[in-house]
């Protein structure tokens, strides 16, 4: 196998070290991410998900431990640290509160401009990023503050996508949106991933979303990495997840109940699997 795009080893991080407010937010976290993977990060509130994400693009410096991007320690050299900012794009929680420019176009262009790209390249990237998130030509010229909450969120995401990061990290990108808005944003992320063959890491509180979209789940619990496995495996540990203040997808729960009632069903994690499973059962009945 080729080298992982991101490799985290024995990462520790302490907030406000040496004060009465000292807090260990990351405790010996290690994992690796391969190119093109879609990783989900789940964990209870305050388990250190956001802190972990900010380590990956060099915003926070680890108290100890290493972060390798394409095999190179991002803190070994100032240039590499700055590169990590652009190669690993981070969309914060509630990113719409960070918009500041007069027009949507200029706000999306902020990142590419900081990369020192040519005017044509910036223009191409802004238009392409706007395309990924479904921002129209007219909307590019309005003030971002005149848009709806969901549209603002898309503009903010486009602002990071325009830097064309190899690894796109999103911290709860769908928090506080209605179902249509959420679905839209998830589709945008997926289309960017497909088009650029990018690696995506997404923090989410929706078990349904991560079960359906991701290849692998990192489960954070009390500053530690508790599990690192595909969703199918993670959701077999229902009780453990509940004890961590998490849950399993609703369909999984329903099918577990069905099974305890004696129905001959296997574990499912997504609606699609559930439909297939029910079809199979009904088909079986028809034959009998």
């Amino acid at each position, binding site marked *: 196998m080729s080298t992982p795009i991101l490799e985290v080893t024995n990462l520790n991080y302490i907030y406000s070290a040496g004060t009465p407010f000292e807090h260990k937010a990351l405790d010996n976290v290690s994992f690796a991410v391969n190119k093109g993977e879609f990783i989900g990060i789940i964990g209870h509130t305050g388990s250190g998900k956001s802190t972990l994400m900010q380590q990956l693009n060099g915003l926070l410096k680890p108290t100890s431990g290493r972060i390798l991007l394409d095999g190179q320690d991002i803190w070994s050299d100032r240039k590499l640290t700055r590169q990590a*900012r652009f190669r690993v794009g981070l969309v914060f929680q509630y990113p719409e509160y960070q918009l500041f420019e007069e027009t949507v176009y200029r706000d999306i262009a902020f990142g590419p401009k900081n990369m020192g790209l040519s005017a044509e390249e910036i223009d191409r990237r802004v238009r392409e990023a706007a395309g990924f998130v479904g921002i129209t030509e007219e909307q590019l010229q309005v003030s971002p503050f005149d848009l709806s909450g969901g549209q603002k969120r898309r503009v903010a995401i486009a602002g990071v996508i325009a830097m064309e990061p190899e690894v796109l990290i999103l911290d709860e990108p769908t928090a506080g949106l209605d179902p249509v808005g959420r679905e839209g944003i998830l589709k945008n992320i997926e289309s960017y991933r497909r088009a650029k063959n990018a690696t995506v890491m997404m923090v989410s509180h929706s078990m349904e979303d991560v079960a359906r979209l991701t290849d692998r789940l990192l489960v954070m619990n009390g500053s530690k990495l508790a599990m690192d496995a595909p969703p199918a495996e993670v959701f077999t540990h229902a009780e453990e997840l509940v004890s961590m203040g998490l849950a399993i997808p609703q369909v999984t729960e329903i099918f577990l109940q069905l099974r305890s009632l004696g129905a001959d069903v296997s574990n499912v994690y997504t609606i699609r699997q559930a439909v297939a499973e029910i079809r199979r059962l009904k088909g079986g009945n028809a034959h009998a």
Partner: protein
Amino acid sequence: MLKDITLGQYFPGTSPIHRLDPRTKLILLIVYIVALFLAQGWVGYGVLLAFLLFTIKISTIPPRSILRGMKPIVMILVFTGVLNLFFTREGKTLLNIADVIIVTEGGLTRAVMMMARILMLITGTFLLTYTTSPISLTDGLEALLNPLKKIGVPVHELSMMMCIALRFIPTLIEETDKIMSAQKARGADFENGSLMDRARALIPILVPLFIGAFRRADELATAMECRCYQGGEGRSKMKILRYHLGDMKAFGMGFGLLILVGALAALGL
């Protein structure tokens, strides 16, 4: 990080200093400052320093935290020291470099005293904000300023404004931190470049910060109105301020200190 600024931060606790009535602490801070400006000589400063150290000791505030709070004023301190050191020409000359840099005995004394005065002033003020929650601080202030209502000063409104401002300082600092991180994630650079570049780099922080502050203000106003807030008229208090025995002792010590320092100053010590 910005969070490390402790200016005006409250350390919850139950020390005798924490339990004093906020009015007592406010009055005694003023008494202490007056004494500080009265002090003339080393003995006076010594007495004040002893009093200050004693207060820090019983307040149970870690001295390290107080030192950390001093960081922002180091520049002012150095500036004051240097000005006094080189521009006071009194007494014996201690150092003379080509008649340009002249350090005199008077200058040295003056520089040290001025720096000591500023340090002790700030430390005393810190002690008040470290041991008094913003709410009880404004409560105390309101109670002390109450007589001014008679001449039409909107005391309650002013103290409410102060209370809200104090309450939102940590929130705004946290928000600034978050916005800075987010813009850094898009490659914003706050550390390098010319002065103009750096000033321009502030726009991506200030705009969202102001918008956020206005949004918060709006939400707070709505929330207050929903709870029928209508200013100080006829408003009752949940915590009624009362002086206790400890306050009497503190007053005794505070005014004793003032008289002592005043007397020492009169003797030129």
